[in-house]
């Protein structure tokens, strides 16, 4: 059965909620009242529930199967975290309540901060950023504030070409120009090119480590030294922190600050596209310009909210305290694993990726030699001459019951396929994935291109026309009459 839009199911006269009667009072709207109906459809509660249950059934999710999206880190989302986040002392709490009435929430945030600084070896933390990209921005703002504070208006930020697109975009938002530098044949930053690009006008170098090719930047210390030598700061994109958490302290690699995606490393659910949460940790070198609000523990055990010492070098990033609901989830996860469990988790994630790389190499072509970190990258070399593209190959996975891997990212590899299994998959599940991929690779090589072009066949939809969507954007439902009128 197809599921129409709610707008196509409404009938006036129904109600989906019952509310108390409206008492008689005079209007205080000063006549600024809505004149036309909003145009929302009226449905009863059972219809709404069924509508969204049916819609949900058209989604793949980590609970339905392996979700090997490289760089996205789809790991198991513990239900304990959901339960904890819904405790009234967290969920039913307003950030503008007096500080005396929010001590529990502040204490929770303070403990989360302690975990994040300890795990990264850093000194200071800001929890405010709403997502990883927002965290990048916060970190760059701090870097800029630090330069400005010492009267040094630098304008250039260096970003490797394999970086996430958010890196250059954030740098531009922060008022910087961006210089991209190429990688080496072994999938890492070209240190020589980097050094050549460095200069006194460079404010920062942004590096993702492990990088988006799933490799550890083994020259990271050399790079850090070079960056610091020209008076620039070394920004860490912590999107892949999950590969090294509990094992490597980014501060020891030379990073001056780093953002952390709570959903990637600390299991908060991705929710079909968010919400995220992107706390940033700062080394001693940047602690003085770390954005607020910061939570401080007093000697009597109470907590206060502190403005940045010496005035707001970086101002407010977001209303209120950040994504508090994600903090409770992440902290529950950290407490569940503990330092030993986090160490085991990163190890298992890396083990699983290397296992996939070893077994898949039988038919597929790794982009770079290993050892891989938490994800393994293949190019489309093994599909050469088959008529099957990376896209076709990915879509064929859907019919095998798997979510496709990340395709065409990083951009530095031709027809990239980036596979990240995470630590929460069993060996059986990994083997099932390998068997399916090897079999698909063999079928591609055996000339079954047509079947690949037709995939997926067994999904709620077959391949969707993205070009049409972009050429003639239809971004909302319009009442049929209006739509007709518009078309005429």
């Amino acid at each position: 059965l197809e599921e129409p839009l709610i707008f196509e199911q409404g009938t006036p006269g129904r109600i989906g909620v019952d509310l108390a009667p409206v008492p008689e009072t005079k209007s205080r709207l000063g006549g600024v009242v809505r004149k036309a109906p909003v145009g929302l459809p009226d449905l009863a509660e059972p219809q709404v529930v069924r509508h969204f249950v049916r819609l949900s059934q058209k989604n793949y999710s980590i609970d339905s199967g392996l979700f090997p999206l490289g760089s996205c880190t789809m790991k198991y989302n513990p239900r304990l975290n959901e339960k904890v986040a819904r405790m009234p002392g967290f969920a039913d709490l307003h950030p503008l309540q007096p500080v005396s009435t929010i001590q529990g929430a502040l204490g929770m945030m303070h403990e989360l901060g302690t975990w994040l600084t300890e795990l990264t070896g850093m000194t200071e933390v800001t929890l405010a950023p709403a997502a990883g990209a927002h965290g990048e921005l916060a970190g760059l703002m701090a870097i800029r504030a630090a330069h400005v504070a010492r009267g040094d208006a630098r304008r250039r930020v260096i970003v490797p070409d394999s970086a996430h697109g958010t890196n250059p975009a954030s740098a531009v938002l922060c008022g910087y120009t961006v210089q991209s530098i190429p990688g080496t044949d072994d999938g890492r930053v070209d240190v020589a090119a980097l050094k050549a690009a460095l200069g006194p006008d460079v404010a920062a170098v942004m590096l993702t480590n492990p990088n988006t090719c799933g490799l550890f930047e083994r020259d990271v210390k050399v790079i850090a030294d070079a960056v610091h030598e020209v008076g620039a700061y070394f920004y860490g994109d912590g999107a892949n922190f999950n590969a090294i958490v509990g094992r490597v302290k980014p501060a020891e690699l030379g990073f001056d600050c780093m953002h952390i995606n709570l959903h990637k490393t600390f299991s908060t659910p991705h929710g079909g596209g968010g919400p995220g949460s992107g706390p940033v940790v700062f080394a001693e070198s940047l602690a003085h310009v770390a954005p607020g609000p910061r939570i401080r523990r007093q000697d009597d055990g109470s907590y206060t909210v502190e403005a940045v010492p010496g005035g707001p070098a970086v101002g407010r990033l977001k209303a209120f305290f950040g994504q508090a609901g994600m903090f409770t989830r992440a902290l529950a996860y950290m407490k569940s694993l503990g330092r030993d469990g986090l160490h085991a988790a990163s190890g298992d994630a890396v083990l699983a990726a290397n296992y996939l790389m070893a077994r898949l190499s039988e038919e597929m072509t790794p982009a770079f030699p290993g050892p891989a970190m938490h994800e393994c990258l293949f190019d489309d070399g093994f599909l050469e001459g088959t008529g099957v593209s990376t896209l076709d190959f990915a879509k064929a996975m859907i019919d095998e019951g798997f979510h496709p891997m990340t395709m065409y990212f990083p951009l530095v590899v031709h027809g990239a396929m980036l596979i990240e299994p995470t630590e929460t998959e069993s060996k059986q599940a990994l083997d099932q994935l390998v068997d399916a991929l090897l079999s698909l690779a063999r079928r591609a090589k055996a000339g079954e291109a047509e079947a690949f072009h037709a995939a997926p066949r067994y999904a709620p939809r077959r391949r969707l026309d993205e070009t049409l969507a972009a050429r003639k954007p239809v971004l909302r439902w319009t009442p049929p009459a209006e739509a007709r009128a518009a078309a005429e």
Partner: protein
Amino acid sequence: MRYLPLTGEDRAEMLRVIGAPSIDALYSDVPAGLLHGPEAFQAVAPGKSELQVEREMAAYARASRAAGDGPFFVGGGLYRHHVPAAVDHLIQRSEFLTAYTPYQPEIAQGTLQTLFEFQTQVALLTGMDVANASLYDGSTAAAEAGMMAVRITRRNKVVVAGSVHPHYRAVVQNQLGFAGIEVDLAPADPMAEDDVAARVDAGTAAVIVQNPGFFGQVRDLTALAQAVHAKGALLIVAVTEAVSLGAVESPGAMGADIVVGEGQSFGNALTFGGPTVGLFATRSKFLRQMPGRLCGETVDADGRRGFVLTLSTREQHIRRDKATSNICTSAGLCASAFTIHLAMLGERGLTHLAALNHALAGRAADRLAAVPGLSLVNDTFFNEFTLDLGRPAAPVVERLAARGILAGIAPAVLDGVEADAAALQNLLVVAVTELVTDEDVEALASALTEELSA
């Protein structure tokens, strides 16, 4: 460890296949001496049982005074509404909760259709042509709107009215400042706003106003829109209480060019301020300058209607440093909650809910205005209004909290109104939703009577 399915035997076998002697050996690229064991992280604890974690987190939860523990009148951009039980049930379904961004539309139609419905609802509520699939929250949406206006007009100044939420003012000032845009903050003031149009000049990209304003005032923005447009600038309207759109004229109908908002009121709990859901809507002509994710309708290979993420050439993962924004993650799940709640309300329910909030707030305002020594500041409001206590409000709020009553917000202490703090210090902003009872109002009124006569 309960979340890790690999057994010791599995690990040994996998290492054998890889040809590595140990897991640590896989980290051979890590510089010498920097690879640690768990013992290197002494400041944090070892793993704990689910029971123990639940106990520790519950201890934190109990150490705060939850909103529902007594009379509660705090608003200021986040509102405590009754969310039907079905909403939270639905967004906790694995298929919504644990899905990724719908990059593979064939197996993500659930999320995509929900986002398409969200976009439509937001466009209808705001009276605009198109809306995106959500931003982080209202405050960052306001900053994005300012930057978008700068891109559209190619002018470099944004005027922020005194009606705008102090935190939003602070966020706009900070973010636009770093982007090299001039921000002109009009004084924060509950009533006067006539000077805003006067601040617009030939270099002004946009004026940002809020309606209902932070202090509660409801304004007809039609004349302001005309004045702003006459000077070639855009009008950006922020709405922090989305329920008001069921009663108050829509920003679109009053001439707004961009509407931003906080959607928390529908489907989302207070959650200590986040995550919430940023609303962003505009006119069709500005579509390609819009930040954030967009879901569009299309057809599949069999000609059936389906939905995809679209126009991603505006976005950072394609355009990198040329993108309209660095936004990647949106507020997908919170947007879903918004959409489900609003689907349950429908036209009738929304109108009723808005009328109920307005009427209860009106009654509460009448009752509180009768407390000796204070006065009602607003001559218009929706479900939130400002009282002048005739003395500094912040200490009164603290004392009432000690008595178990969360009376509202003393705006003078917030970020974003530093310059105006003195003028605001006697004010108390009070929100009244359908969750406030007559007994709550009476409790506040009598406590205020006592405090103000002390």
